[in-house]
């Protein structure tokens, strides 16, 4: 079972991206896909729409009580694996989540996970504001991702998009970076990357993540 963990600040385009990606994986590739939603706020996946498309959608709670739910994503993934045996689970993380904290628990307690890819949606339209007010969150999400989609480029000057790409690359040199406008459709290269199994490649990524993910409870090495 492959996990695609999609993070990014509130309103960055996670839902749009997930809808398109999941549709491609199901329709073009015949994959069995379950979407796990864990967003806060008013933006969320329209369960009815997706039910109409034939996907499985499971929601878990967001809001203030996410501290109670750090194990909930993993418990839900394990349950999904047992119940549906999907090829892939796409997790929409809350907009205030650092993927590393979800991965830490997922990799420790998750069952049947063969590969994990972390995708970060960067909101180019609000880059200036977000990078000034919440830089730790935005850069943290970038640095802990495998793929970074610089989204909403149709709202920005080309120069700004290039600047963002350069900053993302500096923050996470290993990340695969794409500049997109998800609302107008994802480029085929991205759809193919996720539509294919990619197990060999991402399994390596998984073992690297296992090596670099800290143990339960933070530790001070000083």
């Amino acid at each position, binding site marked *: 079972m492959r996990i695609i963990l999609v993070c990014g*600040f*509130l*309103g960055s385009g996670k839902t749009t991206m997930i809808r398109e990606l999941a549709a491609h994986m199901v329709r073009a590739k015949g994959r069995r896909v379950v979407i796990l939603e864990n967003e*806060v*706020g*008013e933006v969320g996946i329209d369960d009815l729409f997706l039910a109409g498309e034939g996907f499985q959608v499971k929601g878990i*709670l*967001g*809001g*203030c*009580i996410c*501290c*109670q*739910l*750090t*194990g*909930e994503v*993993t*418990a839900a993934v394990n349950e999904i694996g047992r119940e549906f045996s999907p090829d892939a689970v796409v997790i929409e993380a809350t*907009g*205030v989540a*650092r993927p590393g*904290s979800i991965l830490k*628990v997922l990799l*420790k*307690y998750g069952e049947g996970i063969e590969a994990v890819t972390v995708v970060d949606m960067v909101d180019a339209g609000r880059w200036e*504001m*977000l990078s*000034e*007010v*919440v*830089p*730790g*969150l935005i850069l*943290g999400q970038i640095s802990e991702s495998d793929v970074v989609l610089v989204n909403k480029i149709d709202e920005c000057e080309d120069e700004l998009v290039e600047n963002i790409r350069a900053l993302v690359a500096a923050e996470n040199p290993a990340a695969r970076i794409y500049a997109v406008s998800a609302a107008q459709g994802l480029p085929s290269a991205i759809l193919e990357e996720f539509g294919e199994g990619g197990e060999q490649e991402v399994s390596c990524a998984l073992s690297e993540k296992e090596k670099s993910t800290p143990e*339960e*409870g*933070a*530790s*001070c090495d*000083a």
Partner: protein
Amino acid sequence: MTTANDLYEERLERILTAVRLERPDRVPVVPLGDSFCARHQGVKLSEFCTNPELSNQVMLKCFMELGEVDGIQHTNFYVHNLSTAWLSRLKIPGRDLPEDELWQVDEVELMSESDYDAIINDGFRPFIERFYLERLDNLGEKLPVFFMSVPSAMQAMKDHGIVPFSPAIVTIPYELFCGGRSMHQFLRDLYRIPDKVQAAMDVAIRDMIEDARMMCGMIKPIAAWVGGWRAASEFISPRHWQRFVFPYYKQMVEAVVEEGVIAVLHFDSDWTRDLEYLRELPAKRIVFSPDGSTDIFKAKQVLGDHACIMGDVPASLLSLGTVEKVEEYCKRLIEEIGPAGFILAQGCDIPPNARPENVAAMIASVKKFGA
């Protein structure tokens, strides 16, 4: 024969010794569990979260069955209280959700940009009264049920020899405005109209402190939760944190302490970057209570001679881990953060799907490793 009152005094002294950063006879354990307790006792969340008296009985019964706790952080639970800390509506089990699903904050934009002007021009209290009435479905009418239940809930715990540790909850304007405006709108406000936001915060904090003082005077708690979640260092820039967050915590904590009440910094998410600032808060009258995200061992290094530390068995360890792993982590906490100036607890709150045997192992670990 040891009476409940003897036990209460013994346990209270154990906790207060830890807060004074001295070494108690053993490390105290003071958990918090709301939805977990309901699940453990087979009580539907819809009933538990709307009946403060029932929630008190359920918490007491749950923790007494699971071991010997020195105190319990909250005396009872009432779901509508969450709206006072978030300025948000809630999805409530039995009303908006299935009867046994966990309540959640429905974080949408209820507060408008013009509300900052209303606060600045007319004051915070008139604003909040109108807000409760018009935008939170007459919240003010629902709250007395809870406040009237707190004294008897505290007494019920004392009658069982258990310390009702921190039944009062306060926070700062940042958290209220962030919840009321919704996070993405609020961050936009901090970027576009920072002076106006700050002016509204300066007005709001005065009334919020007055309310906190009044609550401390009425309830006379041993400690009060000073809560922080979206104001965490991991989210916002140092410049914004130093301007919009810390000065308000400082005022609130100092006011709570002046009332003779211990301030429990119930801080969710990662505050590691700004631990040094917490040394400006009153020494030996505060408890730093991280949720498992802040580096608690770093916190010990920075705050160990200044603040008691409480925590931080992670929610995921309690729900997905084994008894052996829970014991291993508790032992490490007791030995490295304690034994002086430390209270063992979960990080944040015990999650609803925690394994009872893991919670029992956490509680028992203070006797096993904490003497």
